[in-house]
């Protein structure tokens, strides 16, 4: 099974793709801070941010459908978190501010991650002196996300092959939880083996290289 779902548009050749990854991350951080600290009453500024995101997206030549799909995964969470603000005084303003800022921030992060190969992001983070432990965690997450997806897909297929009778939803949920359980155990055991493989090649947790 082949998939590079994270890096699918990272190979394009646009000014945004060519930009140095370290510079991209620094710009990203600056813009995130700017968005977070702009008071929601400065409407013109937010118009500017939105326009800026729009220009970057068109520059990056990444299909809108791709960006929309990714964003749609995150928006429910943003709204869920923002909902809590509604119980405060003048909550509706806070709600708009939270949702708007978080959406803009997500859009920018999306843009950086979609126009940069994941390995380049990791190298950039390393150059920015992010602790080695985090970089290891990110890189494992990236490396094994493919494997996990494959495993889920294969288990699901095997399950479909053997479930001939139409079952009610309760039974399905029960089976799904069993599948998740077995995948969890397998993942856990793999983590142990990977750790052994790291040790075998001289890795010691105390050393920060």
């Amino acid at each position: 099974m082949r998939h590079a779902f994270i890096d699918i548009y990272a190979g394009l050749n646009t000014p945004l793709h060519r930009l140095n990854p370290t510079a991209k991350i620094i710009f990203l951080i600056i813009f995130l801070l700017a968005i977070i600290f702009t008071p929601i009453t400065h409407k013109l500024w937010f118009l500017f941010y939105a326009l800026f995101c729009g220009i970057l997206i068109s520059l990056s030549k990444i299909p809108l459908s791709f960006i929309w799909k990714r964003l749609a995964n995150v928006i429910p969470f943003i709204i869920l978190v923002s909902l809590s603000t509604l119980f405060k005084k003048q909550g509706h303003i806070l709600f708009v501010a939270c949702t708007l800022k978080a959406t803009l921030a997500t859009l920018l992060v999306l843009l950086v991650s979609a126009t940069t190969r994941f390995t380049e992001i990791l190298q950039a983070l390393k150059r920015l002196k992010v602790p080695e432990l985090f970089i290891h965690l990110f890189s494992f997450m990236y490396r094994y996300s493919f494997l996990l997806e494959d495993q889920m897909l294969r288990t699901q297929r095997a399950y479909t092959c053997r479930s001939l009778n139409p079952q009610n939803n309760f039974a399905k949920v029960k089976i799904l939880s069993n599948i998740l359980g077995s995948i969890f155990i397998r993942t856990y055991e793999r983590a142990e083996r990977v750790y052994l493989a790291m040790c075998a090649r001289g890795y010691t947790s105390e050393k920060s290289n």
Partner: protein
Amino acid sequence: MRKAIEIKNLSFTYPDANPALTNISLDIYEGESVGVIGPNGAGKSTLLLHLNGLLNENSSIRIFDKPISKKNIAFIRKKVGFVFQDPQDQLFMPTVYEDVAFGPINLGLSQGDIDKRVNYALAEVGLTDKKNHSSHHLSLGQQRRLSIATVLSMSPEILVLDEPNSNLDHSSRRHLINLLKNFNITKIIATHDLEMVLDLCSRVFLLDSGMIVREGKTREILSDSSLLNAHGLEAPRSILPSG
């Protein structure tokens, strides 16, 4: 000849109270290629894991005359290159280059030396052009060879391989065997592929239920059909008298 590995009365029980190894003693000399054969669940992998001090510290195992202990563990892991059975366990970094560089980085080498070692190891297994690929997207044969490169880059003196060619197609298997043939270092190979053992190893240990059932010259043991059958193996065709 210098002893590369010396094991005296090694027993091991997993935490779930399964005795995996009972009273194992063996000597392996420098430059030798040794096969460890036996049915599934015989304890082959468990035995191999011990050689790198991965299961626990154990004074009954000596590598180049040094017992496996906290003090020696760095030395031992430098000398013993361990290749795991499943490349998905062995290859854990995002790119091929980083995977091969992982060991040399842990050895504390300079960037120049790391580059040199990685280039050498990748050239040795014929994967130089895959340097910036993600290992997930390589074929199984390439992943197996890459797994070997990840330990070659540490220039080990003992190569320990756990089922290096299971599930490979004919040409990938041949490629791997020829590759291993060219390495003039001590090799310990656990496998069911007795044809490969015949091709590569001068000596064989037959393991079953955590015990060494028989040890001896490869040809002698592999031509003993009844012995092999009794332990879940089948004599390789090329050794049997034809007709």
